[in-house]
């Protein structure tokens, strides 16, 4: 079972409320799809500048695995107040700990609402139905 302290997007990002901020990352499923289980298959990750304003669903970064470049999209709107730049140099963190040390951006959200996003249980069902 995936962590139930956060919400999930169908595009395999997660968002977790942390006080007045929200932290965003990608799920273990996304990492598995990108890397095929090999840490070394993740090659590059570009994260945005602090201060950028994001709309819900907007692309905030890009990640390259061996053979594919994929967008990173935010499940919620807000202003980026911190990025986890350590993962740009240590992409293996995404494989070993996508839920905590593998967080990507922290935002000051436009709204506290997480409507439309899935619980961990619903995300599991979504994965089971789609794959």
């Amino acid at each position, binding site marked *: 079972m995936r962590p139930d302290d956060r919400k999930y997007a169908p595009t395999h990002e997660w968002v977790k409320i942390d006080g007045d901020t929200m932290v965003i990352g990608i799920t273990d499923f996304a990492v598995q*799809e*990108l890397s095929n289980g090999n840490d070394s298959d993740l090659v590059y990750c570009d994260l945005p500048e602090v201060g950028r304003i994001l709309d819900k669903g907007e692309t905030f970064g*890009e990640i*390259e695995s061996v*053979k594919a*470049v994929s*967008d990173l*999209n935010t499940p919620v709107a807000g202003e980026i107040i911190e990025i986890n730049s350590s993962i740009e140099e240590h992409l293996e963190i995404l494989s070993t700990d996508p839920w905590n040390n593998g967080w990507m951006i922290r935002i000051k959200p436009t709204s506290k609402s997480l409507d439309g996003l899935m619980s961990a249980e619903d995300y599991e069902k979504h994965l089971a139905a789609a794959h």
Partner: protein
Amino acid sequence: METWRLITTWGASPAFNMGLDEALLGNSQAPTTLRLYSWSPDTLSLGYFQRFADVRGTEVAGSVVRRITGGGAIHHTGELTFSIVADAGHRLYAGPISASYRRVHHVVAAALAEHGVQAELRGARALTSDREDTGMCFHHSTELDLVWDGRKGVGSAQRRKSGRVLHHGSIKLHSSELEGDIAVADPSGSQLSEQQLGGTLRTTLGRILGVRLESDAPTAEERARAHELGSRYLDPAFVRRR
């Protein structure tokens, strides 16, 4: 039977080639599309994340662009270039990226076999075409690459964006001065054209995947969008962004 669109643009400009692929990727209403194309002038394309300084020979090619797909640089000369754009949930692309490569490469290998080329996935074997310091796609291999004669012969890369997938493929007919000692489909240089191999790829794909390919042209909107997007690919700020 599923119907795909087939677009052929032989000898198109590098800006238009790249702009059209991005326009197709961004058109969520577009049917699944196979493009067959070549380049004029010959063009060196860098992978999306590559450092410009890490690629040798940028002064040799007639033009230099940066792709939106990943991987290494490719000198687009003496090759059939193709792209397949579809929804990420399409049966060709669903699931792990590695699985999508296996499906596409199964079709490409079958097409090459029609011309007597026995291409296989590299697997764990070592290739004589691998090099450490050229930055070229054909000098760097992974287990999913198509190889023959102990060398890499097909370059592949993908871009996944907003629920859509663009798969780029380059099948070498002849080697270039930037891509020495790679596998080529027509070593004699006189037996096979891009158009012939493209025709074989079309029929083979249709047979294996059970789809009908209908020749068509980009829509007016796609063409306009291709020209609009295309200029970025030649912009030094983009080409040299890393």
